[in-house]
């Protein structure tokens, strides 16, 4: 092998390796994006039809469905794919998002259930969407920086800050779930972009 051929081999192998690993992350983005879209639409429809905000408890089912599906997705084809620094950072970002979102939701439910002040509890319960959409936007923006993709970075800002702005500007009621529908579509599209980085 000449020096040029050796360097070309190193570059090609490292690039293929990096793309294969990031490709797996793309599949997870699509899975969670689709789930987020479906669950937000389900909550929106049920909440609007019945007038009961309690349909939001359906959100707790999403991780219970999503994590086994994600596990199955990995077992099927990419079981032997190793972790690299990018995939580890992406997993850490979204695992942190999941933990923070579920914690905020649980604390809100607990607060609302024990607090006797109805006006205060409504305000706390209602701000949950704003908090989670902001966390989501931050997680997506950082993911965009990790994969060095401007559309994903911009989508993160638009979803997080735009979602927050829409929430505060418009009195949305059940329709606030459509902010998450938009976020779900953006997440799935991010997955498609990440998968296409392989090419």
């Amino acid at each position: 092998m000449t020096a040029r051929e050796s360097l070309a081999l190193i570059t090609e192998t490292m690039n293929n390796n990096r793309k294969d690993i990031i490709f797996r992350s793309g599949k997870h983005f699509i899975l969670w994006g689709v789930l987020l879209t479906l669950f937000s639409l389900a909550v929106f429809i049920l909440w609007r039809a019945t007038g009961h905000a309690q349909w939001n408890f359906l959100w707790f089912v999403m991780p219970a469905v999503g994590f086994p599906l994600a596990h199955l997705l990995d077992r099927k084809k990419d079981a032997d794919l190793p972790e690299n620094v990018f995939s580890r950072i992406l997993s850490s970002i979204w695992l942190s998002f999941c933990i923070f979102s579920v914690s905020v939701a649980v604390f809100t439910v607990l607060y609302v259930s024990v607090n006797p002040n109805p006006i205060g509890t409504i305000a706390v319960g209602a701000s949950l969407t704003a908090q989670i959409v902001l966390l989501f936007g931050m997680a997506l923006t950082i993911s965009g920086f990790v994969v060095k993709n401007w559309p994903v970075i911009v989508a993160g800002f638009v979803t997080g800050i735009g979602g927050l702005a829409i929430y505060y500007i418009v009195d949305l009621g059940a329709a606030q779930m459509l902010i998450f529908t938009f976020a779900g579509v953006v997440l799935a599209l991010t997955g498609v972009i990440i998968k296409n980085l392989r090419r």
Partner: protein
Amino acid sequence: MFPKLDPILHSELRLAVMSILAGVEDADFTYIKKQTGATSGNLSVQIDKLSAAGYITVEKGFKGKMPRTTCRMTPAGREAFSTYVTALQEYLSAGK
């Protein structure tokens, strides 16, 4: 005077294995085989050579009921790989 290229690394398959391991924490034998397109026998021989040179560690274990061989680059391997790449770049820049 050009630096001498490490003969352990200056082989197509061993270099490909090291390039894969340079970007990950560790990698499964089957994954390396898939990425390099090498046969199991040839890959085993080259992995043994890298292991004997102290450039990688090889760990045999199980994932569920399936046997699993995991390779990981050592600090000495990382150093050798980095020196090798620097040497290649010196060769190329001298050739311009």
